[in-house]
């Protein structure tokens, strides 16, 4: 597992790995995790450079 992976958590027999704040849809709404906003900003900056 990567060092970014969270501490293993058992979810019904599964070891859950990865960023717990990754983009996910629950119900009708697919909210943007706050930590990903910086990624969007970086993408837009790249677009501006082009």
């Amino acid at each position, binding site marked *: 597992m990567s060092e970014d992976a969270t501490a293993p958590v058992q979810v019904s027999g*599964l*070891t859950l790995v*990865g960023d*717990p704040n*990754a*983009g996910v*849809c629950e119900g009708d*709404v697919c909210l943007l995790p706050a930590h990903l*906003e910086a990624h*969007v900003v970086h993408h837009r900056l790249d677009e501006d450079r082009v």
Partner: protein
Amino acid sequence: MTTPTEPTVSAGTSAPIKVDIWSDVQCPWCYIGKRKFEAAVAQTDADVEVEYHSFELAPDTPVDYEGTPVQYLAERKGMPMPQVQMMIERVKGIAASVGLDYDYEHMHQTNTVLAHELLHYAKARGRQLETKEALLKAYFLDGGHVGRVEDLADLAAGLGFDRDDVVRSLTEGEYLADVKADVAQAAAYGINGVPFFVFDGKYGVSGAQDSSTFASVLEELGAEKEVAG
């Protein structure tokens, strides 16, 4: 209910890594996560076998809802329009970063149960993966409708399926029980949101994670298989 799955890569000599993915057709993070997962598979050259499973995010959505996801969220869920627009713009930015040009102005918010039935129809014929990609592309990029029998039959015919047989299957609800079984399995795992990836029935990965996360799981399982093999 057991149906064949399609290996995306088959280079190794040991059993491939089985990846079960719960996903919905009109889930923006599912398409983004799909691209990130695919990048990890390409990066690691992992031997994987992928199977998609149904997850209905909004089973109460009318098939013939006349509107976009933006209108749906604002009108039906009471979210302020500026908040919805801001959210959509941010998601579009993330999608663009993985090469997906989401066209929210032309998306048709709908009920996806028939699209899931079509995915099971395709899986039974060993062609689920290309059907999954076609459905996501139709919904997010091409302004296609993925909730109605005739539209789904057109899409399937474009993939080479027998259009009349697809209409028959969707009209009869031939694979409805399989869709509900997937949803029940998700509940049994405790899955509340999608995309959700289960690797070899052992590791769970929730959401559109970075490719590096998927890659590390694939490498870990690959190493375990080498030791065991």
